[in-house]
């Protein structure tokens, strides 16, 4: 994969580049400020980009803004946001366009290289990779909309794990179910949510978005 790394702290940027290259992927560009990030995103159109939220020149949310602006230009441009803290507010903004190919994780998720690369690949393929804390908060608050009310508890559990970005196999492992059982749950869930696309990734993304958007509207 061709990957862009946007991070203002040299140590972290360097470490991230080394990790990605060690996993056999190519870093096509690096950026250390918000405007640079936007420029690189649009110029290189990487397969997936790793972007920090807080960056120069103002040390506010420049990275996130660059990512959102780039995705307005190029809908679905895969971007994985890495941050020192996760905010539901930002998660909603990232997911708002409904085109998938977004991730939002804590920086320490790079500690587990395999899972990190896995998340990168999922986002590159148009899926999602959301921090479990965001999902947990969504689960504990808000009132699900009427269409979600029709889901069983088990289906909702599956949906929450799907929102984290897990595959059917991984969901099955987490819930001690067989992969085919998970498949059955997802199919019945898609039916209840009225999602009829053929392609599985797309359906998964739309189900997750329906789930995220159903909780207290932003």
């Amino acid at each position: 994969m061709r990957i862009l790394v946007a991070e203002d702290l040299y140590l972290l940027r360097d470490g991230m580049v080394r990790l990605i290259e060690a996993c056999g992927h190519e870093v096509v560009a690096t950026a250390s400020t918000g405007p640079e990030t936007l420029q690189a995103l649009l110029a290189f159109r990487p397969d997936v980009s790793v972007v920090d939220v807080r960056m120069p020149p103002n040390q506010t949310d420049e990275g996130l803004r660059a990512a959102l602006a780039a995705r307005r230009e190029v809908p679905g441009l895969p971007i994985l946001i890495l941050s020192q803290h996760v905010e539901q507010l930002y998660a909603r903004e990232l997911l708002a366009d409904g085109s998938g190919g977004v991730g939002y994780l804590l920086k320490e998720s790079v500690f587990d290289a395999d899972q990190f690369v896995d998340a990168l690949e999922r986002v590159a393929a148009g899926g999602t990779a959301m921090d479990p804390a965001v999902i947990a908060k969504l689960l504990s608050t808000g009132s699900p909309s009427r269409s979600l009310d029709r889901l069983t508890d088990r289906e909702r559990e599956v949906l929450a794990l799907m929102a984290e970005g897990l595959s059917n196999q991984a969901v099955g492992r987490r819930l001690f179910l067989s992969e085919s059982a998970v498949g059955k749950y997802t199919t019945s869930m898609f039916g209840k949510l009225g999602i009829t696309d053929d392609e599985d990734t797309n359906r998964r993304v739309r189900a997750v978005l329906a789930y995220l958007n159903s909780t207290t509207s932003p």
Partner: protein
Amino acid sequence: MRLVGAWVSGFGRSCAVAAVCLAVPSTWVAAVALGIWWGAANPWSWPAPVLLVVVGTVGLARPVCQAVRRLVARWTGTRIPGGYREAGPVTRLSTGYWWNGFSYERTRRDALMDQRWRVRWRDPANVRDLRFVAVAPFTAGLVAAVPPVGLALAVLGLNESQLFARLAGALGLVVALAAAPFAWRLLEPVAARFLRPSPAMALAERVDELTAQRADVTVAQAAEIRRIERDLHDGAQARLVALGLSLATAQKLMDRDPEAARALMREAQAGATASLAELRELIRGISPPVLSERGLVDALRALALDSPLEAEVDVRGEAAAELEAPIESALYFAVAELLTNAAKHAHATHARITIGRDMAALVVEVEDDGRGGAEVRAGGGLDGLRRRLAVFDGTLEVTSPRGGPTRAIIMVPCESL
């Protein structure tokens, strides 16, 4: 019937105003009468009337002014602050003597007595009170005396048989009837004009207030810094030491026992994750990242999303443009605390945060659907909140009847744009 009631109450009020305002002049009249009775030609009779005038005026000035304040507050709702000096604390020194802010005394009783006299007689408010008792008889007192005097004239005149006296009595009755509902009303403007604390007194009060606030802030700041230091010392710092230890041990074991080394590395990784989570919590408590990244409104939105309540944020107009960072932070933590209270103590399920700007203040309102009963107690959470807001001249008002809902309004004055 209502007309009669209004007239009676107006007449009563006029009499009360006349009595209060004319109390001091009546001592003057008494003094003059005393002087005449003793004979003005005899110089030995002079000191007693003079003493009566001085003691009557000075001694009655403050009670009269207090009575006027009470009457005005009760009848019109206008509160006129007294602005009198308050006595400071009386403390016992290590020498055994008592210090009252002015002098050393052997006993506590002496110290208190001495202090009471000094505070009373050195108060700049005395001059203002004297001025008021000089002005009031000729303004509010004179006007308020019209109905009782008119009534007295009527009673006396109508009993006489002469036509002139009867006419005067009838005139007195008409004047008394017409003036009674209005005659006492001059008291309010006169009191408002002459009884207000002078700018110097207001300033002195403000200085006291600021001194107390500065002490509060200093204490709070020191406590906060100590908390941060302790958290870092026991948390992140200790974890980093443990991390270094694990890595050093792993390095030693690498060749001899790779399996144990790998376990240690995993442990180190878990330690790093844990200390990051701890640091994140700590940072959130000092200055929430979303606040510096997005400003107050979005930070409140993030807060609402994170809250266990179903909370919504309603922004009216250009509410929070260009606020100073310390004010933003204070408002953020205030709302966070109010939301926590709503969830924890009021058992609310919904909350609404409204943020807007009126003429001169930024107004943040937090309303929940909980069971109410919240009150501002000295030393309680809401009191602490109020003190922290007071640093910016902000105020906190809480209305929370039993059974709910609770409504808290924070106002911070700011230059209107």
